[in-house]
């Protein structure tokens, strides 16, 4: 019985510790949602309004009415899906080839890609795309976003392929399957969960990317992060719609992130190109 108060005390201290740890994140997202749902008058009041006079979707409506938001969302979707699909198409077989042949030298590229600032690639790409008349095309954006997804996918898939027992594929070959056939029919189905994880991670980083599109995309091809950044510079003080837009941009990514949280570290160790 003597232990009990001591245990209770420990529990309370630990609870406070956890609360302190989570407070910055909880408060940040609470405030983001709050800004997006409060009327403009509440957002510009001082002291700040914690209990809004009313909740309104006006800011969300304003986002869609004052800007071609759906168009920007479509741009983001095309670029992220395009780059991720292409990266999967190139990266999954490559990861298999590396895992089976033991040519880990290719991983060096991944390391360099991980360390180099994205801006280093941007200048040459920018010039090249201009010269080829490709600037301001989806193609250029998708190609540049490959640098986010491809190293990441190879890295993540390497781990998954290494876990597939070679004997299974050898058995398929003995049964008359070609080596490539055993890759397609044995290895790929076994690593399907890995492909989903790698694809989602690549999609998230591509969707979040700001720097490539800010340089390479013209007004019509702006992706969401670039679009909301530009909204800020032109309408400095409209906090409600801006918060609503920011929330709309990041919510899909947060939902996806929760589904792959177990693998986030692997993704960030290889990709997560931030600038």
């Amino acid at each position, binding site marked *: 019985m003597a232990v009990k108060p001591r245990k209770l005390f420990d529990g309370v201290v*630990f609870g406070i*510790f956890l609360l302190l*740890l*989570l407070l910055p*994140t909880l408060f*940040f*997202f609470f*405030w983001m949602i709050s*800004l997006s749902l409060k009327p403009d008058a509440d957002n510009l*009041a*001082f002291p*700040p309004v914690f209990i809004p006079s009313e909740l309104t979707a006006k800011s969300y409506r304003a986002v869609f009415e004052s800007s071609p938001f759906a168009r920007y969302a479509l741009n983001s979707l095309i670029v992220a899906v395009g780059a991720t699909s292409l990266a999967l198409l190139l*990266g999954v*077989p*490559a990861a*298999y*080839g*590396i895992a089976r042949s033991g040519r880990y030298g*290719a991983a060096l*590229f991944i390391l360099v890609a991980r*360390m*180099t*600032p*994205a*801006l*280093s*690639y941007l*200048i*040459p790409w920018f*010039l090249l795309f201009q010269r080829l008349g490709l600037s301001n095309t989806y193609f250029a954006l998708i*190609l*540049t976003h*490959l*640098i986010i997804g*491809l*190293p990441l996918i190879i890295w993540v898939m390497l781990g998954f392929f290494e876990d597939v027992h070679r004997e299974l594929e050898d058995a398929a070959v003995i049964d008359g399957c070609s*080596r*490539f056939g055993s*890759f397609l029919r044995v290895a790929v189905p076994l690593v399907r969960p890995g492909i989903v994880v790698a694809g989602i991670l690549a999609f*998230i980083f591509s969707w979040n990317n*700001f*720097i490539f599109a800010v340089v390479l995309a013209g007004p019509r091809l702006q992706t969401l*992060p*670039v679009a*909301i*950044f530009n909204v800020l510079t032109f309408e400095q003080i409209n906090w409600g719609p801006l*918060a609503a837009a*920011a*929330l709309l*941009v*990041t919510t899909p*990514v*947060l939902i996806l*992130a929760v589904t792959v*949280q177990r693998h*986030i*570290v692997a993704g*960030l160790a290889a990709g997560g190109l*931030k*600038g």
Partner: protein
Amino acid sequence: MRDVRRRIELYLDHHLFTLMILPAALTLLLIIAFPLLYSVWMSVHEFSMGATTTPRFLGAANYVKLLSDKRFLEAIPRTLYFTVLGVMAPVVIGTVAALGFSRIYPGRGLLRTIFTLPMMATPVSIALIWQMMFHPQLGVLNYLLSRVGIPPLKWVFASNSVIPTLAMVETWQWTPFVMLIVLGGLASLPEEPVEAARIDGASYWQLIRFVTLPLLWPYIMVAIVLRSIDALKSFDIIYVITQGGPGTASETINIFLYLQAFAFYNIGFASSVVIVFFLLIMLMSVVLLLVRRRTSWQ
């Protein structure tokens, strides 16, 4: 006909792994190696946007100019200042958080998920909200400070507080990353040393200090290496919140590089920044990896 097909199949099977790696390798070569090499070439030429004449060879002139450029020379210590803050704070808090999240209690998974949200959120979205919270008159942060009796701060609007403030946002966003790495380390620790120390009567804090932390050190070092690389090249948060301002007070090397290339269109000059920056990051990575080797347990 069947014979030819069989032969092709045999050939493909024989070189299969190479053929599977090749497309990705060529793509990476095109999108990574080519730009870096082209940057080297541009950095030794007089190169500006839209010039129609053949670029003139300059030799090391861009580099000489760069190393005497006051703005660049000021950006270096500023970048290091931001990096040191943006590595130390997340590593310390993230390690403490990992110890907290490694305990078993109800709701742990949910709390951990919430804790990791910042690092996956869209950086531009985050930056915009922080900027509103930093507003000197209307921002919620100064209000909260006033409630606990602290006078309002200038946050990103004063040159002496802008870097620590940006580093705070960086810390907020990337502490979860460190936490997850260290948590992974905690999960793979051998149980015997902890058990042995516990039997010897070590307290909780002694266990952490003398057993867990030394065993975790390799993982913490990995976190430090990755965090250093990322903090050094941080762009989105800084650019969206301050664009290098006020004045040049938050102009890190990466922001300086961006402005030279895409605001002033000094392509050749910017390319020399690329090369110097690249070497700086490589140098730092090598140093950190050497430190890691020396201090690692095995």
